């Protein structure tokens, strides 16, 4: 029977051409269905592409045929191949008057094109026309396309029509218009900011579908600005109430549940509105309580609503009764056999645990079962829960488990995440320094290349500073244990680069610090590292710098230094290295070895990695030299700002030029410029993307500069709302992120008035005595996780229950302070004054020239070197000294940034600032345009 049906279906499709599809297409689908491998499938698709390319070139293709070709293109694209050669035909098809074809055209373009595709412009006109159609299906098709295709630039072209459609007599159109506006709001909030009242109005639409759709944009709006929607709390509550009382049409029922999707959306909104607002929360108690009673936990959708209730309760300020109901629901989830529900239960537990920390107690075993479940998803969720409930009493168990799991998985994305969580927990709750270093070693060893580099920096900083207390003895012990563990680990093959960097740095700073290991031993090890990882320049750089420190400490303490032969050969090899960075370091090391103890000590003082380094940014020690140069006829330096000031007129032009093209895409007659859109433009104007355009502005004729300006402005348009990626060095922000504590697991949550400190009265013994039949292993694990056998540990960290995290937060920020992480040393800044007189010389060359001139008595051919040794022979040694010390100190103080990096993009920040300034100047005239317009137009 079944068989007959299928055959019949197939036949029907074959004969009728399956809604206009030809035999050819059916054959294609079939042959792909029969393909035995991906390669075969690809071959078939490629030949199909060839066929289509040929066919599309034929003149006068009948429309029916064309429609089929386009569906075939969609199919190709769906299978992951490029069908861009046919996009234009799909665009053309949207122009067709026949709805059938038009709809196919729209379907194809929405699947083919992204919103930033060039062809969009060709569609806008059609969309405008279709929005005006009196066939509501055409309007719907156009609105569907709008939701996918319209971008920031084209919003104004369709906005008025979409707004008009909000009052269309067909609810399907109203609904889609709402969704389109929602989409606009997400793309560019300013474009629809004056229309927000419409959303409120549509909430009262008498079609429940429209009302349901309106909840989507409202959810977004409320996320952005809770305060101005507080008045809607009671409306939402009453809507939810009506929904649960089955006041909506029966067609919205889903598995006997009244409009569940709308309920869930409402619950999400209520969670936002009730968060931290007692009075708003109180309005919701009733309806939430009802929901718990009404929800049928035997269906999946009922559970979905229950889960959403739990989430809402964890966000609002809940009543004890609701909490209890939520806890009950969670325990039902956890006890269920379904993995899905267990997962939801664990998730819910993680949410509620912030409010009532002891809720996890009763579910210990369930949690541990989930932790050991073969299902990875469930396991990960459980780790998330553990992460949330970590405190100093259970940190060791939890982190150990996490690391075991981390080692066992291959998924790099999750590995990264769990590694960073381990680090975070270890930083926050570490019971001892040794333990901390061990954990870090493990993390680095197994996930080294995935760990954020700032974790390495934090570790180095921590070792350098100790744990904050003024206990030098403990600090040096910490360092010693670090050094010892590293010396041990180093012998293992194939360590991650980042870990080696940390090792090298620590060995360099502290390897010889307390005399346990000799300089030659440590330097031998460092040479081994540089040898073994000879392809990794960063590691090599760290190793060389470490060597330099070791020798410097030796020289400074007056001991005689004999450079190991392998070290000597390493230096010689690096002197000829292709990497300027390594070369630089090698030269520095060589120069340093020749200096006397006093000089060396001032270059690399012992254990000074925490000291601030002062930069002489103005390079005042070169003043005399500059003076001389000017006297002998050199051009004085003109600062970049002044230079750009001179160029302002050209810049002005280019600004005008780019104003025109960006507004060239007008889709209707002149309109009055809106101040709001200009404002956003001014703000995006500051988005730095400058260097290419900056240089072209400065050095190229106007026409090209305007082009590049336009380019950059195009890029800028898309940057609105996107996180700034290449802007200022993100170092600061990242450290601040690391210093914010993870959500404190116990007690100290965002709800200060609930349940703080109750964790100290844990009835753990009751559980142990009650259930004796449980496997002892699990029991032990449970106890260690949930605080059973932790008495000794919690003694040490006595009363730490609710206290420690707070302390962690309090003590962290000051810890960050003493080492203000320097922005990457501004090497170009160094060279700037000179760089202008001799345009664009490589600062490194100059430095080398300087060094050469001192060591080889000016034998170099470098212009700067010659100039320098000619002009200022007296100051040579001191300035070289200071230069060197600045260089090496900076490399020492900031291990992450090494010179080759800084030389490439060093003063981008400065350039950005200047660029911004230039732009501001350029922009000002245009930003006055609105008033000008007003004046002109009255």
């Amino acid at each position, binding site marked *: 029977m*079944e068989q007959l049906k*299928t055959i019949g279906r*197939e036949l029907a*499709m074959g004969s009728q051409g399956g*809604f206009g599809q030809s035999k050819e297409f059916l054959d294609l*689908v079939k042959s792909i*269905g*029969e*393909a035995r*491998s*991906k390669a075969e499938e690809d071959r078939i698709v490629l030949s199909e592409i060839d066929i289509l390319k040929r066919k599309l070139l034929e003149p006068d293709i009948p429309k029916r045929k064309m429609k089929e070709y386009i*569906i075939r293109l*969609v199919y190709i694209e*769906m299978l*992951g191949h490029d069908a861009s050669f046919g996009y234009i035909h799909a665009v053309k098809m949207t122009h067709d008057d*026949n*709805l*059938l074809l038009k709809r*196919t055209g729209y*379907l194809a373009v*929405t699947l083919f094109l*992204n919103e930033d595709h060039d062809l969009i412009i060709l569609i806008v006109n059609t969309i405008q026309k279709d929005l005006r159609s009196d066939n509501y*299906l055409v309007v719907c098709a156009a609105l*569907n396309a709008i*939701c*996918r295709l319209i971008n920031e630039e084209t919003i104004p072209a369709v906005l008025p029509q979409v707004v008009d459609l909000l009052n269309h007599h067909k609810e*399907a159109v109203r*609904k889609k218009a709402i*969704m389109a506006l929602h*989409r606009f709001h*997400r793309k560019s909030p300013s474009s629809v900011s004056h229309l927000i009242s419409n959303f409120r109005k549509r909430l009262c639409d008498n079609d429940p*579908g429209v009302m*349901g*759709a309106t909840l989507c944009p409202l959810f977004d709006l409320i996320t952005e600005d809770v305060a101005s929607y507080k008045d809607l709390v009671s409306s939402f509550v009453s809507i939810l109430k009506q929904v649960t009382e089955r006041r909506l*049409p029966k*067609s*919205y029922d*889903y598995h006997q549940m009244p*409009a569940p999707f709308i309920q869930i959306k409402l619950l999400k909104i209520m969670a936002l509105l009730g968060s931290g607002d007692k009075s708003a929360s109180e309005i919701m108690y009733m309806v939430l309580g009802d929901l718990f009673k009404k929800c049928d936990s035997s269906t*999946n*959708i009922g*559970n*979905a609503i229950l*889960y*959403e209730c739990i*989430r809402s309760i964890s966000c609002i300020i809940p009543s004890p009764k609701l909490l209890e109901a939520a806890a009950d629901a969670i325990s039902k989830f956890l006890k269920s056999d379904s*993995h*899905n529900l*267990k*997962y*939801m239960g664990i998730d819910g537990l993680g949410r509620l645990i912030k409010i009532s920390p002891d809720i996890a107690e009763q579910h210990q075993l369930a949690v541990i079962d989930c932790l050991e479940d*073969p*299902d990875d*998803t*469930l396991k990960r*969720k459980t780790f998330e829960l553990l992460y949330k409930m970590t405190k100093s009493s259970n940190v060791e168990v939890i982190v150990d488990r996490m690391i075991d799991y981390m080692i066992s998985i291959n998924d*790099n*994305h*999750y590995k990264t*995440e769990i590694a960073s969580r381990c680090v975070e927990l270890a930083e926050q709750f570490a019971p001892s320094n040794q333990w901390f270093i061990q954990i870090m070693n493990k993390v680095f060893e197994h996930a080294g290349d995935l760990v954020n580099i700032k974790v390495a920096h934090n570790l180095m900083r921590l070792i350098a500073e100790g744990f904050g207390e003024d206990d030098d003895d403990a600090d040096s012990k910490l360092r010693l244990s670090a050094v010892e563990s590293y010396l041990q680990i180093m012998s293992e093959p194939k360590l991650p680069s980042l870990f080696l960097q940390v090792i090298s740095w620590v060995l360099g700073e502290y390897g010889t610090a307390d005399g346990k290991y000799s300089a030659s031993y440590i330097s031998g090890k460092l040479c081994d590292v540089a040898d073994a990882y000879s392809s990794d320049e960063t590691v090599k750089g760290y190793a060389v710098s470490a060597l330099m420190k070791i020798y410097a400490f030796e020289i400074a303490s007056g001991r005689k230094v004999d450079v190991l032969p392998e070290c000597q050969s390493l230096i010689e090899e690096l002197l000829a290295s292709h990497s300027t960075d390594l070369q630089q370091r090698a030269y520095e090391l060589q120069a340093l070895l020749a200096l006397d103890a006093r000089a060396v000590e001032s270059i690399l003082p012992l254990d000074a990695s925490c000291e601030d380094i002062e930069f002489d940014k103005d390079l005042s020690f070169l003043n005399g030299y500059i003076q001389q140069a000017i006297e002998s006829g050199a051009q004085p330096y003109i600062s970049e700002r002044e230079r750009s000031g001179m160029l302002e007129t050209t810049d002005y032009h280019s600004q005008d030029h780019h104003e025109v093209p960006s507004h060239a895409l007008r889709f209707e007659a002149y309109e009055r410029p809106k101040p709001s859109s200009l404002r956003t433009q001014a703000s995006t104007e500051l988005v730095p993307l400058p260097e290419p355009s900056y240089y072209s502005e400065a050095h190229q004729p106007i026409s090209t500069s305007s082009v590049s300006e336009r380019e950059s402005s195009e890029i800028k348009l898309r940057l609105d709302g996107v996180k700034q990626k290449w802007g200022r060095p993100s170092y600061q922000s990242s450290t601040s992120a690391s210093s914010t504590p993870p959500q404190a697991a116990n007690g100290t949550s965002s709800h200060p008035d609930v349940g703080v400190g109750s964790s100290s009265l844990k009835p753990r013994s009751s559980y142990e005595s009650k259930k004796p039949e449980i496997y002892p292993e699990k029991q032990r694990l449970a106890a260690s996780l949930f605080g059973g056998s932790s008495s000794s540990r919690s003694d040490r960290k006595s009363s730490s229950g609710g206290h420690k995290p707070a302390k962690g937060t309090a003590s962290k920020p000051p810890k960050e302070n003493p080492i203000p992480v320097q922005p990457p040393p501004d090497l170009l800044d160094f060279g700037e004054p000179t760089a202008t007189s001799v345009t664009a010389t490589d600062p490194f060359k100059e430095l080398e020239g300087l060094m050469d001139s001192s060591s080889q008595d000016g034998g170099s051919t470098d212009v700067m070197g010659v100039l320098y040794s000619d002009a200022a022979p007296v100051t040579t040694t001191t300035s070289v000294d200071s230069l060197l010390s600045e260089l090496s100190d900076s490399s020492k103080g900031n291990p992450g940034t090494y010179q080759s990096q800084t030389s490439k993009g060093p003063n981008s920040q400065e350039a950005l600032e200047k660029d911004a300034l230039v732009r501001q100047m350029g922009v000002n005239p245009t930003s006055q345009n609105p008033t000008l317009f007003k004046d002109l137009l009255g």
Partner: protein
Amino acid sequence: MDRLMSLCVPSLDLRKHRSLIDSLEIQSCYLLSEHSCLASGFGSIHFVLLVSRQGKVRLTKWYSPYTQKERSKVIRELSGVILNRGPKLCNFVEWRGYKVVYKRYASLYFCMCIDAEDNELEVLEIIHHYVEILDRYFGSVCELDLIFNFHKAYYILDELLIAGEIQESSKKTVARIISAQDQMVEAAKEEAGSISYIIAQAS
């Protein structure tokens, strides 16, 4: 081919449909690749994916911008993860900081990718809702229907989800608008037919 709605029936009688049997080689083990920069999404649902048990793509809908290259990577990676999962496990997979909710109907996997903070059970029901609508439209839908009429499936999806948000939760309403569209199509067809008929007569 099995009805999709006869839930989770893994057995597929191969003799029935010799012409359309997909290869049995499970192509799911395309190598998992390293990170790629996925664009951050906009809607609550980032994409919808229909994959057959053999890893063949039946339908894709991307609500967040992905390049063609990223798309195939996503499909490869996800089908690798999802098709290899056992039957009794969660219907959720954490994946690159997102969550993918999937459900198997007969030989077809329906997957939706959502943010980590979304309600997975709800999405599971959205999938089911979609399947129910498909079922109603095609009359006990099977994979074959979707293979040959994927554009229909797209139309229906467009009525259900817009920009990654659920737009209409009433089956009836969706069915009504789809059938209205179909009627228009039929009318257009007839019209075209009659015109060509007239032309044929005239000439």
